[in-house]
């Protein structure tokens, strides 16, 4: 529940900012990093639901087919959860490579969802750029999320713990 209070408004502000001011800049994939953070922090059904909601909001903001990003993020959450049982995303390299890998996985899933919806879209170099930028910034953003998540939110119970 607490994660919803923190990460949902953060995502909305980030997406609005991106759409209005930096539509052409390769910014890190914040939604993916949130999903990775929630999955490795202590995944719960709430975390899966948050991933779905973040994907839905992303679809709404980008004018994409509703369900394409939420499909990818919900599954990516599951994979990140399974990965986090084997790998600790605590070192800089693990955070960077893990985030980039999961972002790439998310994009493959989105393209698969588009394919199922009958929309043909080539795998574009911009996607690789976004994946690289996400991996590059992950070691800075993930610890920031950890600090953000540790702050007290009035009225919200601490949730998402194993």
């Amino acid at each position: 529940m607490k994660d919803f209070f923190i990460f949902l408004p953060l995502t909305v502000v980030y997406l609005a900012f991106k759409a209005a001011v930096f539509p052409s800049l390769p910014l890190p994939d914040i939604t993916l990093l949130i999903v990775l953070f929630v999955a490795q922090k202590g995944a719960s059904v709430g975390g899966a639901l948050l991933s779905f909601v973040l994907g839905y909001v992303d679809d709404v903001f980008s004018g994409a087919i509703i369900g394409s990003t939420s499909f990818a993020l919900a599954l990516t959450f599951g994979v990140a959860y399974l990965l986090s049982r084997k790998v600790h995303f605590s070192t800089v390299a693990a955070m960077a490579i893990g985030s980039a890998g999961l972002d790439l996985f998310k994009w493959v899933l989105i393209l698969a969802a588009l394919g199922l919806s009958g929309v043909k879209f080539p795998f574009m170099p911009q996607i690789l750029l976004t994946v690289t930028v996400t991996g590059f910034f992950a070691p800075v953003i993930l610890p920031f999320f950890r600090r953000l998540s540790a702050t007290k939110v009035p009225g919200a119970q601490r949730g998402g713990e194993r």
Partner: protein
Amino acid sequence: MLSFVKRHQVILASIILSLFSLHLSSLVRKGTGGEVIVRAVLSAVTSPFERTLVRMETKVKGVWGGYIYLVGQRAENENLKKTIYTLTDENNKLKEELSLDSRMKELLKFKEESAVPTLAARIIGMSNFGAGGGWARTLTLDRGSLEGAEVDMPVVSPRGVVGRIIEVTQRTSTVLLLVDPRSNIDVTVQRTRIRSVAEGNGTSLTLKYVRPFDDVQEGDVVTTAGLSGIFPKGLYVGEVTTVERGEDNLFRYIEVKPASDIRKLEEVLIVKEKQNLLSGIERAGKSIP
């Protein structure tokens, strides 16, 4: 069974939610419109924020430009610096106003020539352009149903077709651009009158179903055919940039560069009357170098 579900609840939840998402995407493609409420709520919350950001961006650009200009003048006396700052600031403002004036004049001229009810709109959001990644190619405009915008209304600029409205809330509209992979429009090659379907591929348009013996050359102008029921006939779409033999040998691979460079657009016109645009727009398209 219950213990299995409990043990794997996270994985099961993510699988169920992803399947539900796929179901949602199929519903949206069928046009059930269930997502409209969410879009409306999000739009109501974020569009004032986006408008403010766009305004702030314009102001910050002006101030930043002025500041950079002044950095080299710091060594000079304070009065001169102040004068330069004031002049630069004024100059930036004037340039901005001049640019706005010129864009508005162009838009107004175009509006008058088209002689159909149109609605000027400002772009307040863009999704995933250039290096921004992502696959959807959409714009958010600051006009919604309260101003008369409707789904499927064409959106044009003095340069040509921009796209069509796919979502309308009270205060904003979402425009599906020509280059979006979901966009398909009927077009005609102006020189030879060959008809085709222009499909978006993310960065440009691809003409479909053009046979190897059809006469299409690089540099040919492509206009709307007026068959879709959305875009009026004769709107300038773009110019053929690539003509190659198709992979299947049945059809040619033809790429079209869209007329409007979306990244440079700040204002557009929503055509409030579908399928009935006068030849003024066609003339405007033809006059483009």
